[in-house]
Each structure stands twice: as structure tokens, then as C-alpha cells.
């Protein structure tokens, strides 16, 4: 008996090979995402993928779900309309780091604040890849980019802390070098009834890697293993520069669409 692990059924195969560079981490996210959806057994007709603009956001074209490829930074606002209008749909929103946290920062905050049952995947490759490798708010001080030829002076910030403070009830982080954890966290995020955020470190070997002399895709994946530790690890105390992987927030609070049903109930009782 052979186990069926094929995810072909969840892909729009006619568009493969996809447009991402050889070794791009976003392909690994796509891989983990369709595996998670398959394991959850979600009906394809009940899944809407809403993305913004950028290499990350192209992911929505490759999956055989309802797909909504919107404008830069606003995917969560479109997704809020989809979800509130038809709460029975599973809404997944893959976005790049610039898309979600730069131009999209405000919508990220408010989707989290509302705790609306949407799964946000922040595919963080610390650059704007599609447009040629400009620095992003996640690049960090000292990084070289096409718009930071003398190295960036811009601080980055912690996406996990922002999500937590804004009110997200499921917040996790992993990298594309940890594929089992990747699928697990995406599964949990989709299954969570509330606003879920999974920050996924992904590599852009073509721009971020090359401009900062980080080697190729394989080197960058090895670096993800070296620069991250499981949440709670002792190593973090000794080296604060390490990033923790795991689930940072997981709690049950009133979900927005369900809370709105109460508004309807109150309005109709009068």
C-alpha cells in the first residue's frame, strides 16, 4: 500500500514551473501550505487565498483555491470583506514582509485587533524581491540593498511582538529550513478560530543573499538553522541575537464574525 502524499491536486499545475528563482524560499512555503491544507482536509471550494503584490503574493496564482490577487499592502482589508461577508470560508492571506508590514502595516494591526478568523502568512525575506531587491522594514541596520547602497540605517522590528500587541490570538514563527514545523504551524494557524499570524523566514538568494554576500539558497537555509532556536531555548539567553521559533501566542478570544452575529441579534431584538 502506498501512502498518498501527493499535493498535485491542490496546485494549478498548468502554471508550473513557477516564476520564482531557483532556490527561492517562497516555493518551500507553497509546499508546506498545500501540505497543511491537504492534511486538514479542507474542501477547495471553501478556501479563499487573498494576496497582495510581490513575489510572495504570486503564491495565490499557483494554488487551486478561490484566489484574489489584490493591490500592494491591502490584502488583509480585502480579506476582511471576504470573511465578514461569508464567515464560513477559510481565508488565508500570504504576504511579503513589505506587503504585510510596510505599506500593509496598518491593515495588519487592525485585522489583529479585530481578531477576525483569517490566517496571515508573513513570508519574510527581508527585501522587495519583485522590484529588484530594495530594502524593506525587515532588512535591518547594516544591510545592503538596491536603495541602501551604503548600508541601511533603518531599524527593523519584531513582527511577532507587533502581532501580539495588536491582539492576534495565534502568533508563531518558523523558517523554510524547518519544513515539518512549517506545515504544523500553518495547520494550527488555519485551525485556530481567530486572527493567526505565522512569520516565516524565507530566503531571497537572488537579491538579499547576493547583495549581502550570504551565499546561495543552501547557505541561506543553513543560516536559518543557525540563527534560530526553539522558543524557550537556553541558547537565547546567551545570544539575544537569535530568533525563536515556535508558538508565541495561542489563546481563545471572541472572534470578530461571531461577535458581529451578536450585534445582529441585539439589533433584531429591539
Amino acid at each position, binding site marked *: 500500500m502506498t501512502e498518498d502524499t501527493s499535493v498535485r491536486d491542490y496546485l494549478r499545475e498548468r502554471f508550473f514551473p513557477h516564476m520564482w528563482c531557483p532556490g527561492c524560499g517562497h516555493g518551500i512555503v507553497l509546499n508546506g501550505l498545500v501540505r497543511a491544507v491537504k492534511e486538514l482536509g479542507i474542501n477547495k471550494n471553501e478556501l479563499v487565498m487573498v494576496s497582495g503584490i510581490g513575489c510572495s503574493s504570486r503564491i495565490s496564482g499557483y494554488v487551486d483555491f478561490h484566489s484574489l490577487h489584490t493591490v500592494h499592502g491591502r490584502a488583509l482589508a480585502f480579506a476582511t470583506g471576504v470573511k465578514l461577508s461569508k464567515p464560513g470560508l477559510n481565508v488565508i492571506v500570504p504576504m511579503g514582509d513589505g506587503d504585510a508590514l510596510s505599506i500593509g502595516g496598518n491593515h495588519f494591526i487592525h485585522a489583529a485587533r479585530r481578531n477576525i478568523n483569517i490566517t496571515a502568512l508573513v513570508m519574510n525575506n527581508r527585501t522587495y524581491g519583485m522590484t529588484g531587491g530594495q530594502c524593506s522594514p525587515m532588512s535591518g541596520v547594516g544591510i545592503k540593498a538596491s536603495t541602501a547602497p551604503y548600508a541601511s540605517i533603518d531599524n527593523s522590528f519584531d513582527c511577532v511582538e507587533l502581532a501580539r500587541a495588536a491582539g492576534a490570538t495565534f502568533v508563531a514563527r518558523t523558517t523554510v529550513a524547518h*519544513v515539518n514545523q512549517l506545515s504544523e504551524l500553518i495547520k494550527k494557524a488555519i485551525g485556530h478560530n481567530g486572527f493567526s499570524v505565522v512569520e516565516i523566514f524565507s530566503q531571497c538568494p537572488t537579491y538579499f543573499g547576493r547583495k549581502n554576500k550570504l551565499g546561495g539558497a543552501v547557505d541561506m537555509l543553513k543560516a536559518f538553522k543557525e540563527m534560530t532556536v526553539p522558543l524557550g531555548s537556553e541558547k537565547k539567553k546567551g545570544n539575544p541575537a537569535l530568533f525563536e521559533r515556535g508558538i508565541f501566542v495561542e489563546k481563545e478570544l471572541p472572534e470578530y464574525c461571531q461577535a458581529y452575529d451578536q450585534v445582529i441579534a441585539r439589533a433584531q431584538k429591539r
Partner: protein
Amino acid sequence: MAKRLKKHEINQDWCKGCGICVAMCPKDVLVLDKEDKAAVARPEQCIACRLCEKTCPDLAIEVFTEDSDSEGKR
């Protein structure tokens, strides 16, 4: 129930030869061939962990397994 490798199917159109599967394989099963595409060099070492299948950014690898106890005992 233990699984063992039946075969790898590597889609030659989709594989972009990034070498990630080669590097991630814990048992050095895969190589890049002369066309710079992933290929199976040492199938006998494969432990069917599926890291190649799950990590491939091109979704080009499918790992087919069969039960090592393939005489029907469950």
C-alpha cells in the same frame, strides 16, 4: 508500520536545479546530474524521510513508499 522507498519521481520540467534537496538529504541520496537537475544516486540509502519532497521549492519531487512489511500484516 515502517515505510520504505519505492521510488522518487523528479519532474524534470519543474526542477530548477537549486540543489536544496541534495544538501538537505540526511543520507546523501540525491545529486545534481549533468543537466543540473536533481537525480537519485543512492536509493538504497533512502530512509523515506521525505525531507526532499517537503523542502523542494519547485514541488518537483514525489517520494513513493511501500510498507516494509508488504505481505499484508497490519
